[in-house]
């Protein structure tokens, strides 16, 4: 049975519409040392296909086991093996130390990728002090496209290991025309000690 009010369909075929365009798909909470966190379409309620044109990951209180290590991501294409897709990216950051003197803004050529298959840094140099952590968001645009490369954009913040506020802007593309249906996150060394990663879908209608 459909419910239609004033010409607008509110409910049909077992689903309701008009309840917001940002849909929480999956939350993964890390509460003890974990080497990798993966979001795989069709597994554990994860949707990462053509259901949504834009996907958004949120990172909340990512805490690293090892000091000054980097929270990073890679992708895998549908039917592929390994998180090792070719990425070209840009990376710039700003920082300001708790001492009030250290500061800077600039491109960091050590943290971008140029047709490389390694993991892309998103939150660099997370301090592993008890209260140190990283936060931010990553947008993935139309990963199911088999025509275009898949673009991504991230904005993240952290209390850098040397006690500074640090903001990072990372953008680039996964240079493949195969659909992306798996994303993996990990630290550049050691484990993700704790943290929350959420996956949202953003509707186009």
């Amino acid at each position, binding site marked *: 049975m459909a419910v239609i009010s004033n010409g607008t369909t509110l409910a049909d075929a077992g*689903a309701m519409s008009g309840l917001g365009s940002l849909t929480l798909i999956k939350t993964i909470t890390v509460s003890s040392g974990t080497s990798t966190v993966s979001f795989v379409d069709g597994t554990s309620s994860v949707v990462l296909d053509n259901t949504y044109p834009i996907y958004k990951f949120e990172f909340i209180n990512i805490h690293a086991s090892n000091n000054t290590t980097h929270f990073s991501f890679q992708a895998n294409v549908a039917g592929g093996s390994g998180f090792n897709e070719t990425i070209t990216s840009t990376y710039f950051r700003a920082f*300001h130390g708790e001492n009030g003197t250290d500061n800077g803004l600039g491109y960091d050529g050590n943290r971008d990728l140029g047709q490389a298959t390694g993991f892309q840094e998103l939150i660099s140099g997370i301090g592993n002090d008890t209260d140190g952590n990283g936060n931010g968001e990553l947008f993935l645009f139309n990963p199911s496209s088999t025509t275009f490369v898949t673009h991504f954009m991230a904005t993240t913040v952290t209390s850098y290991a040397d006690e500074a506020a640090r903001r990072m802007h990372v953008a680039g593309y996964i240079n493949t025309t195969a659909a992306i249906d798996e994303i993996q996150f990990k630290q550049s060394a050691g484990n993700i000690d704790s943290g929350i990663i959420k996956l949202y879908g953003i509707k186009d209608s």
Partner: protein
Amino acid sequence: MGLISNGTTLLDAGALDGGVATGAMTLLSTSTASSSANLTFASGINSTYKEYVFKFIDIHPQTNGKHFQVNFRDGSSAYDATKTTLMFYSYHDEGDGTPALAFVNSDVVAQSTDAGRINTGQGSDNDESCAGTLHLYNPSSTTFVKHFHSNIAYTDSSGTPNSINVFVSGYCNVSAAIDGVQFSFNSGNIDSGTIKMYGIK
């Protein structure tokens, strides 16, 4: 009365069924300025959401050249959480002068309880305002420092006004929960404007 569609319960006993997928972004509060010293969100910030988002819509200052700023309440009644921030901006003036991208060292704080600026030198002409967003992560944590970041577009107070895109990040370097957020200008009132607070599921 329940509402069942295609065998799925959608509504029952005055509420949505728990199995219905709902939007993840919830409007919690709206605060509108009318020659206000500040706009304060003193309730609704707790462990319900891991992320809070504030949207600034047409924030207009009383006084020319002042700085829109934020502070946080961390356990007392005062908005004075210790914080370290960074700021950078890009700008381009209406005369097509040389644009730039720069770190703004004069408008940041380091381990300070003062309000943190989230723009600088905003213009107060009748048609000038600022708009943007501030994210606050897991303010109820009593373990981690509390990160925030903002992005605001505005017109500055220069004789030849600049379009400015300003980015601010930082953290409240406290383990106490943050349970209130206050926005103001460093001098003068918020003449008009609206701030909306959302919780992200």
